[in-house]
């Protein structure tokens, strides 16, 4: 028989020491989601320079890409996107009833794979910025 219980406010981040793998996955998914939606608006704003003139667009993109900080932020953006994609797949599978019993393992796998892809992408993202 199901019963009602007071679990407290699940969104109470002050309880972070009590969080299990699933809760950390929820927190990371939310955090990466906020970053990605923020980036979407910034991205469209930057791309909109194409409305001024072809030169304005090319100059804006190439000026941004010449900055080391932008290249580092791009590695961060890739990491955030990869984690959101991998954890999103994990959530889609769980919604379909697949893998719920291994949801903690699939979260750790998402983290490891994100880390590996982020490290492997560093040479590509930093190419040419020092030269």
């Amino acid at each position, binding site marked *: 028989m*199901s*019963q*009602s219980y007071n679990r407290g*406010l*699940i*969104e109470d981040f002050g309880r972070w020491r009590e969080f299990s793998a699933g809760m950390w996955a929820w927190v990371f998914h*939310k955090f990466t*989601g*906020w970053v*990605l*939606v923020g980036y*979407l*608006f910034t991205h*469209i*704003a930057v*791309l*909109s320079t*194409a*409305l001024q003139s*072809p*030169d304005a*667009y*090319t100059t804006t*993109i*190439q000026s941004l*890409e*010449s900055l080391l900080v932008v290249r580092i932020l*791009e590695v961060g953006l*890739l990491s955030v*996107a990869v984690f959101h*994609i991998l954890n*999103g*797949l994990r*959530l*889609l599978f769980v*919604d379909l009833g697949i893998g719920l019993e291994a949801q903690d393992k699939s979260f750790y796998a998402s983290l490891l794979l994100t880390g590996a892809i982020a490290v492997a*992408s560093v040479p*590509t*993202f930093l*190419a*040419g*910025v020092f030269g």
Partner: protein
Amino acid sequence: MAERYSSFEVGGRRWLWQRITAAFLVVVLAFHFFLLHFVNHADEVTFAMSQARMETLTYFSLMILFLLTATFHGVNGVYNALINQGLTGTRKTAVKLVLVVASAVVIVQGVRTALAWAGGVPL
């Protein structure tokens, strides 16, 4: 009976659309990142290169669909996150209005930019 914890309304379809757009975005976001950072490099981007891609109807339509689904998925996600945090009543209505307007602005701006690259709809 166990209490129901959800940001979504009973019988609503936003839950389903969040999943449908997620399945689409998993593939298209990965493709977008791979194409524009690993096949082509971001520091080599020029207006002419973006224009060449956008002049293809398949690519143009994919990017418009990408814009629409990403905006819905992102803004709907923000709305649900705020409801999770306890947003209700008039503030909830006001936030919904702001998010709808912000979505419209980003979509209109994105479509205008795509049309500027493609020089109109590439039919």
